[in-house]
């Protein structure tokens, strides 16, 4: 059975979702969902170990060898990503705050868990498939389930946020489909490896160029790269809190992976950066995202919206790593991907706990909570410090690698701008600290039970642990960076 793991990791959550509809009993469904997430984490961990020792794993669905059939292909990059996604899922799904802020009536909560599992299955599918059209199918599974999950927020604005996301997301998905069609038309294949073999002879073709453009734009919409990010703040703000935690920590990461895969595996860095000079387009966008996102975050009055704008800035950092196209830069980008998943997941879960106790997620509402909910607010502060990139937290490690990467390429101004934008992060994190510890308490509340703060602290604790113990994160990310750059260690 063990050679089938790379198929099972996707199939398991995909088939676990319909089981939710048969079980129906809410407690049963919650336990089931958590069990599935944990099993997926174990599978992902095993797969990562296998890839590290045995190299790339290829699996032919239906026994048809690629390019005839659909191939699942795991290398250091996506095995690493699978661990991130499943780890976040296995912390968020069992969390006691999972139902906070959903508008679902009693007795229909199993649908919510089915949607969560489908979203997980979609993300894992995008991460591990080696077939471009299969990517589209799983992108749509992820998207449709996220629209549903977001629309379940309590506020009616969740509905309009979900609708705008649906429109943007479908345009993005259809752009991906167009890009795939263009590439398919000139090569006759949908398999990524096969495309990588066939494309170098065709790079002069205008069809290939347009195909590349549509894949990039489609992927960027899904990733919320700077000018295409408008759907993100509303979606993260109005979604049920735990859903924000899950989606913020995983969905953008997987879209980032998709862009990296298209650039480095299918087209190759030489074409994208040396011939097209894409970094001169991406670099300004990344820098603008860093500043515009952080600045917007400073002025928000809602915690979730603040975190959402901070996400836009963090996506900027990751894109920065992408356009350096060097081992240090990509390592920085990928480590930041990992760290950002931990801190944003943790921070959104902390907000979920606050919403659970105070009923709102406004910045004013956390006034004085430092004394009332000490465990949750401490997590909030540590997560904030990591967002800034204070030494000793994981956020420092990834920014360090990004600065090193920038200096390596001779982009000194980029290094300085990274430091400057971190200073803006100090401002918005300070606002939270000020309100929580120096304000007068508005609510007479006590802290949340252990099953709510423990998941938060697992993720936030991770940012502390991986601030010192960088072997695993940086080691894994460097291996992933080498794998997609095609460098042999």
């Amino acid at each position, binding site marked *: *059975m063990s050679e*089938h793991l790379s*198929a*099972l990791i996707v*199939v398991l959550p*995909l*088939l676990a*979702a*319909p*089981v*939710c*509809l*048969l079980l129906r009993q809410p407690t049963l469904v919650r336990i089931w969902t958590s069990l599935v997430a944990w099993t997926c984490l174990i599978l992902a961990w095993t797969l990562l170990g296998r890839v590290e020792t045995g190299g790339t794993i290829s*699996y*032919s*669905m*239906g*026994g048809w060898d690629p390019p005839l059939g659909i191939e699942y292909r795991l290398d250091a990059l996506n095995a690493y990503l699978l661990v991130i996604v499943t780890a976040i899922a296995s912390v968020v799904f069992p969390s006691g705050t999972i139902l906070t802020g959903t508008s679902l009536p009693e007795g229909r909560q199993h649908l919510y868990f089915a949607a969560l599992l489908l979203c997980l299955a979609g993300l894992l599918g995008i991460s591990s498939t080696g077939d471009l059209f299969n990517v589209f199918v799983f992108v749509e599974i992820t998207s449709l389930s996220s629209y549903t999950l977001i629309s379940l927020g309590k506020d009616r604005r969740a509905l309009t946020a979900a609708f705008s996301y649906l429109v943007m997301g479908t345009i993005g998905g259809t752009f991906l489909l167009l890009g795939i069609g263009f590439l398919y038309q000139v090569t006759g294949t949908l398999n990524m490896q096969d495309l990588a073999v066939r494309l170098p002879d065709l790079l002069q073709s205008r069809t290939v160029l347009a195909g590349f453009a549509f894949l990039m734009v489609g992927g960027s919409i899904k990733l919320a790269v700077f000018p295409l990010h408008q759907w993100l703040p509303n979606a993260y703000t109005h979604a049920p809190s735990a859903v924000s935690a899950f989606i913020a920590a995983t969905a953008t990461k997987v879209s980032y992976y998709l862009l990296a895969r298209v650039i480095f595996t299918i087209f190759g860095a030489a074409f994208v950066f040396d011939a097209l000079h894409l970094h001169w387009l991406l670099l300004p966008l990344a820098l603008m995202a860093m500043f515009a996102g952080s600045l917007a975050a400073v002025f928000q009055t809602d915690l979730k919206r603040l975190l959402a704008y901070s996400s836009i800035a963090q996506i900027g950092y990751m894109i920065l790593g992408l356009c350096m196209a060097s081992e240090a830069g990509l390592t920085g980008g990928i480590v930041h991907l990992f760290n950002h998943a931990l801190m944003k997941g943790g921070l959104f879960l902390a907000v979920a706990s606050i919403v659970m106790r105070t009923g709102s997620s406004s910045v004013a509402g956390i006034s004085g909570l430092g004394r009332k909910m000490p465990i949750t607010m401490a997590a909030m502060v540590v997560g904030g410090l990591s967002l800034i990139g204070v030494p000793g937290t994981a956020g420092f490690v990834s920014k360090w690698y990004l600065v090193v990467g920038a200096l390596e390429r001779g982009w000194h101004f980029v290094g300085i701008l990274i430091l400057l934008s971190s200073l803006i992060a100090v401002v918005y994190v300070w606002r939270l600290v000020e309100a929580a510890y120096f304000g007068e308490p508005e609510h007479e509340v006590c802290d949340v039970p252990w099953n709510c703060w423990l998941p938060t602290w697992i993720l936030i604790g991770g940012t502390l642990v991986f601030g010192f113990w960088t072997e695993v994160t940086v080691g894994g990310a460097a291996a992933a960076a080498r794998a997609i750059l095609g460098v042999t260690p």
Partner: protein
Amino acid sequence: MSVKPPMRMREKVLLRVASQVFIPLILLFGLYVQFHGDFGPGGGFQAGVIFAAGFVLFGLIFGLEALQRVVPLSVVESCVALGLLIYGGVGVSCLLRGGQFLDYGVLDHHSSMHGQHLGILIIELGVGLTVAATMLAIFYAMAGRGRT
């Protein structure tokens, strides 16, 4: 969509008689499309749509309650799930028989061609079931909205 109380419809004998002729025909056509997919155009998805159309027609003529007495919502919900599980189940049984996921060839030890036939037949059934049930669920959801 608003499903009006079926009182006025009931008087329309012609409509009821015609529907009693047509609904079985529609369902029969659905079955034909389901099992004829190997030979001509069609398959599980199209069959599911046609099948659902038959039930929806019944609902429109005899009322939503009558339809829900025939096919309760809980059954529809289970069928939505079952279809996908049947599909996945075929894939898993291929694994158990020593093949790759969804490698139907191993379903029949004597002839891989037979196995492929069998596999495609069953997965198409799964697709048809999920599609028909989902369409019906959407109809229930929207029709239920109109009356409150």
